[in-house]
């Protein structure tokens, strides 16, 4: 199959590659770029383990061809750490509030929470539950994930206020 030229920004870095056109974005990220934070839980858009942020939207990268991401700006969970390598606010809150157990859903959860809190910086519990409903977790029962996201919202808002 003729290879396709793709170019995109991933976690702030320009990447360019030749890829088989039917390559799914998740496989391109995980196998070609070795960005293994996003996981595969279903490959049918149900579980959200593969969630990445593409041009300001949460996207399930298992149901998208790499070519469709040509020219896109992509952020994965790896890109959400602070510049000094320490955990970002949402990551820290997941740890603080025990929002993860096996960790398999976590990259997708955190990436989704990152977008959710930009779409809605002051979510109610219901907003969080609804906004995270595209991401499945088999371990935590969500209660602590919801708590972590709520605390992350507060922490981010406090940061913003302090900066103003």
């Amino acid at each position, binding site marked *: 199959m003729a290879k396709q030229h793709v170019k995109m920004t991933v976690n702030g870095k320009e990447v360019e590659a030749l890829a088989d056109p039917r390559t799914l974005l998740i496989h391109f990220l995980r196998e070609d770029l070795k960005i293994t934070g996003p996981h595969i839980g279903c490959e049918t858009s149900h579980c959200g383990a593969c969630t990445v942020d593409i041009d300001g939207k949460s996207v399930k990268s298992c149901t998208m061809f790499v070519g469709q991401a040509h020219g896109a700006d992509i952020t994965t969970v790896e890109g959400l750490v602070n510049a000094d390598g320490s955990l970002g606010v949402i990551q820290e809150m997941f740890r603080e509030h025990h929002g993860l157990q096996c960790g398999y859903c*976590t990259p997708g959860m955190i990436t989704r929470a990152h977008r959710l809190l930009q779409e809605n910086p002051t979510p109610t519990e219901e907003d969080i539950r609804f906004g995270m409903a595209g991401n499945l977790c088999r*371990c935590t029962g969500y209660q602590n994930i919801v708590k972590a996201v709520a605390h992350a919202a507060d922490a981010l808002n406090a940061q913003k206020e302090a900066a103003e």
Partner: protein
Amino acid sequence: MTDQTLTPEQRVANLKGMGSARKRVEDVRFTQGKGNYVDDIKLDGMLFGDFVRSPYAHARVKSIDTEAAMAVPGVVAVLTAADLEPLNLHWMPTLAGDKQMVLADGKVLFQGQEVAFVVAEDRYAAADAVELVEVDYEELPVLVDPFKAELPDAPVLREDIAGQTEGAHGPRRHDNHIFTWEAGDKDATQAVLDEADVVAEEMVYYHRTHPCPLETCGSVASMDPVTGKLTLWGTFQAPHAVRTVASLISGIAEHNIRVISPDIGGGFGNKVGVYPGYVCSIVASIVTGKPVKWVEDRMENLMSTAFARDYWMAGKISATKEGKITGLWCHTTADHGAFDACADPTKFPAGFMNICTGSYDIPTAYLAVDGIYTNKAPGGVAYRCSFRVTEAAYFIERMIEVLAIKLNMDAAELRRINFIKKEQFPYNSALGWEYDSGDYHTAWDKALEAVDYKGLRAEQAQRLEDFKAGKTRKLLGIGLTHFTEIVGAGPVKNCDILGMGMFDSCEIRIHPTGSAIARLGTISQGQGHATTFAQIIASEIGLPADDITLEEGDTDTAPYGLGTYGSRSTPVAGAATAMAARKIRAKAQMIAAYLLEVHDNDLEWDIDRFAVKGAPERFKTMKEIAFAAYNQAIPGLEPGLEAVSYYDPPNMTYPFGAYICVLDVDVDTGEVDIRSFYALDDCGTRINPMIIEGQVHGGLTEALAIAMGQEIAYDEMGNVKTGTLMDFFLPTAVETPNYTTDHTTTPSPHHPIGAKGVGESPNVGGVPCFSNAVHDAFRPFGLTQSHMPHDHWRVWQTANKLGLHG
């Protein structure tokens, strides 16, 4: 010394030992996407394997043509049973004493069964080739109903053992019959039932479901052609057992096999079994000389690896007019699918189903379980429970409700008057267990008070009146459960898997500077072992948990152990950890005595040091002792500070709990809305309250899934109807309620630190609690039993059958 200035409380806090809500050390990696799961492993030249699977539930395989598949660019090999046969690997032993086809050998017995294994340079080429393997099938009659399997003219499923009247667990009375397992006194129980004031009878079905961890199963096999050493990474809940099995079936010497369980994305029992994919990846690596990865997709996971439950439990329970239970009878028809691949200890083909007398003092009982072959996937794993304990708990907690209806009694009161009393422990149950400890009445009263049980019943009565008056279309259900689990398998004298005793192990090495590494025979799949086991050590030897590294899952370095499932890590490996730590402390005491120039007996342990009795200012901290162990020549003592313990538990542990669920049922839509859920758990000594709470939330959510919608359903042709996450229910954050957790603490008397294990209690207790709540809502209209899962459609049907739709 700086710590001379610290108070004892500060010194304890510094350790972050048992009882501390220590943050998890695992999370720093996981939250930034730096976990290392099987599918993250990438080796040079690695190939991908993918299965051709049977579309039929029962068919003869007449021929397999691999030519077109082999012609696909990038395809390296296509393996069939014919290729495995010369190696004697076309069949493999199961953990239950049966054998299972690795690749279809002449016939297929369930939809999704492995028929051929394609190996290619990338997963896309492998998937292309899978489509091109041509298999000629001849369809055979399908059996999906275990009750039809034993009819005289039923098709024989397992032709390989046709006519064999003796199986791994005793006599077989039909070609589709696997075993009969009995406990208790049949005649005495019959006599009690015959004479009883009241007998309630019910068929309780616990449907087939699946653990469905978010990460599916997979492996990477790498045979080094130069050294002859096989390295196998995989989603293994029991890496050492996998190594032994791999050695036994492949003939590769055990020291030439290294099994590694990397990070595991949830297990819940799904990753205990040995699957054809593991075997095929090994063979493919041997054949091709390259590493081979196999990772199943979600549909393959749901269709072929490790279902759970599928127990038809016919029950009878008898009582006096006042409600004192006198006898219990249970006959279970257990649908095991095409191969008996349950992961139960050898002597327990129906697991610990004989815990089905539950929390109650039932003087006489009888249990019989018949295992049956059908054209369904093999498995029968303990999905977030100890072996078949959730089936047992569901059975007894339903039977109690059915009896309460028959007696026209309040179900909470019926439970209370039948609980085993605190002073009866250790308690010998009619079906053969010795319950270690419990205080059920205290837990029960605390729970009823916490939810204002009386108030709830009053509200429910009011709701019923309103419903009858046409003011509402919603009924209120109050679900009660008091469960007793049996976990921590187990004593080597009666628990083994494939002949290996179910002990577990821990090795601790203290470094000269006072930090440490501990290695265990278990493997975490999200339970946070790296965090909690370090806490046990911290409390036992007085070094901060933060200075203790914990490693599991590499058979080349970890001591032998039977792995993590059945809530056995804390009861067994946790005990081994405490015992290993105590060996270290004992040696440390001798070193301290030498350093302080006193007799061993003149010293006493004080949080993180040995101090001279009566002179607390004269002491040596564990850190100082560690250094001395490596730099001083102490007469009569070997240098170094290390210990290993293999712990064979004297008994199981018996965690228990009291759960109460309140929900609204919309009779017109069948929708169920969980209003509140209160969970009181008693898991003995609590190591990390934060992690316990997380385990309870997670287990309850899996219980919610099972009770309210999750099932592996087949049509009569043996087609799996719920093979994707579109049809297989996993609750999202929207359906999942908030839970209120609570606890009492009744330590296990025989466990070194009194801990009982908790990971599975919420599933064991949660399922009956949700189900009882739905039943309770309909109790005034005459409902005694409706089968799970209580999805909208089934609840609507229940309402409809009861005439509630006008």
